[in-house]
């Protein structure tokens, strides 16, 4: 019973995080701002879901595979966000570096 309650709380938190992130992706003005809201959905919510599976199923193969997916997302998420940000900047300005006159000596 307590296990079910804890699982439901964790799942509810995960859904709230995803809901907030989806509203952020919808309402922010440009892609740079929208990209900030992908991170909670890619890092925080999967951690909550993995915790929920761990609480519900215990330390078994299923929860291990869920944690493996979480680890892959935690490692891949920042790389993907950085690459996306860089691509958007290169697409908009031609180069990811700041213009020559704005660079510090």
């Amino acid at each position, binding site marked *: 019973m307590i296990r079910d309650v804890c699982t439901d709380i964790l799942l509810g938190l995960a*859904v709230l995080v995803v809901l907030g*992130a989806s509203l952020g992706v919808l309402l922010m003005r440009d892609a740079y701002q929208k990209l900030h809201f992908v991170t909670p959905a890619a890092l925080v919510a999967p951690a909550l*879901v993995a915790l*929920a*599976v761990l609480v519900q199923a215990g330390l078994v193969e299923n929860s291990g595979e869920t944690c493996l997916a979480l680890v892959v997302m935690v490692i891949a998420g920042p790389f*993907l966000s950085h690459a996306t940000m860089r691509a*958007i900047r290169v697409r908009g300005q031609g180069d990811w570096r700041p213009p020559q006159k704005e660079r510090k000596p």
Partner: protein
Amino acid sequence: MVLGVLGFTAAAIAMLICTIPAGIVIARGDLGSAVVGYEFITSVMVMVLALLAQAFQRSSLFELPVLLAMLMFGGGLVFVRAMERWL
């Protein structure tokens, strides 16, 4: 046990509904915003697959979120690289 299964299924359905705003961004936003929406939906789908696998109690289904998480990384990098150079 039934309550737990219901919770996982309900969370999966709620997360699927949460992908609608990102779908709107993909359909109506510029290319950069559409890529962000695609990455958001992919991240949510990894969780949905894990939630449904736990809800249905099928061990074999737990491989799908791991695969999608790996493919999300490779596919996303290929897509943003193409966007940077050619699109």
